[in-house]
């Protein structure tokens, strides 16, 4: 039985889709069978980040409404054999997804895959709640910034009350993934520290992904950053996070600022 993991945040633009693609790709590379489901109905994007936008024929809504078979809608990644994508629909009807439909798709997928990663839409409404509904675990993507942390806190509240697990008296295992971390700004006290975020949310840390140009480059060419530039700092941080998600004990490295020559000559930058 595979694990169902929701990648969620409340706030938009924090890095959910980027993280779903990056984590999914390394998990698959390490030999796991992985399927990524885009739950962002109406705002499908995971297909673009994965470079599969031209191969979408059917989507999640088609499958739940019986217009296509699950096997017809799954897109196999061209780089990693055990990686699949189930795209979101571009319909504007937000109610196109039903709970029963999602339940049946997820139950089928968890039989066949080791990991079912659900890329949540932003917000705390129906779409986000459906994405987390059947999750065993949650990756809460948070930027070290007040509005993102507040929204993560609300999402934690929903994970503890609106999921099937919660209703059955169990708990969804929660992990915080801090993304877009800027070591320089954190060192200057301009950005919440990792310790601040963890203390406020009191959820264990899955990883710290630095702000990195490579992420944008990777999305430009339609590749998860972990496949496109596996050696860059964000990709390595995602690889470590993926190992922790599988239960490995990987030491946490807080990114440090790489000072340019000019900065070094000038010493510490003035506020």
């Amino acid at each position, binding site marked *: 039985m595979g694990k169902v993991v929701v990648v969620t945040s409340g706030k938009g633009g924090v890095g959910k889709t980027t993280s779903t693609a990056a984590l999914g790709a390394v998990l698959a590379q390490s030999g796991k069978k992985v399927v990524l489901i885009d739950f962002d109905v109406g705002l499908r994007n995971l297909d673009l980040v994965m470079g599969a936008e031209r191969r979408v024929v059917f989507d999640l809504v088609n499958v739940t409404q019986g217009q296509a078979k699950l096997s017809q809608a799954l897109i196999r990644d061209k780089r990693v054999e055990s990686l699949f994508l189930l795209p979101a629909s571009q319909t504007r009807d937000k109610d196109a997804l039903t709970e029963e439909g999602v339940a049946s798709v997820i139950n089928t997928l968890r039989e066949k895959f080791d990991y079912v990663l659900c890329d949540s839409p932003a917000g705390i409404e129906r779409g986000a709640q459906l994405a987390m509904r059947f999750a065993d675990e949650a990756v809460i993507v948070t930027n070290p910034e007040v509005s993102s942390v507040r929204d993560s806190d609300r999402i934690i509240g929903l994970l503890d009350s609106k999921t099937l697990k919660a209703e059955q008296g169990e708990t969804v295992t929660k992990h915080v993934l801090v993304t877009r971390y800027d070591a320089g700004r*954190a060192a200057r006290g*301009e950005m919440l520290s990792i310790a601040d975020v963890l203390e406020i949310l009191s959820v264990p840390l899955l990883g710290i992904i630095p702000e990195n140009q490579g992420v944008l480059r990777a999305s430009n060419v339609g590749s998860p950053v972990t496949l496109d530039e596996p050696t860059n700092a964000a990709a390595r941080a995602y690889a470590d996070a993926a190992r922790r998600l599988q239960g490995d004990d990987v030491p946490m490295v807080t990114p440090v600022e790489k000072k340019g020559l000019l900065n070094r000559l000038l010493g510490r930058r003035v506020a």
Partner: protein
Amino acid sequence: MKLLDFFKRGGSAPVARERLQVLLAYERNNRNQPDLVAVLREEIIAVIAKHVQINQDDVKITMDRGATTSTLEIDIHIPNAGIKASAAI
């Protein structure tokens, strides 16, 4: 900005942290309850409207939430002409 503030301005992160802690302590307690300020506002207006004709716009309610206590400030502008006869009781 005061000169002292300038030197103290090592970073705004500690302020962010404190604001979040106060806010989230409140939000976690009130997640499943209706907004207290909204409820008070409606009920207070209803009580006053029994005696005085007022516009919704003439009632200003502000809230300042602190870590341990909060203040609710209610500012009502009653037009002199609006006082109903019954209010004389």
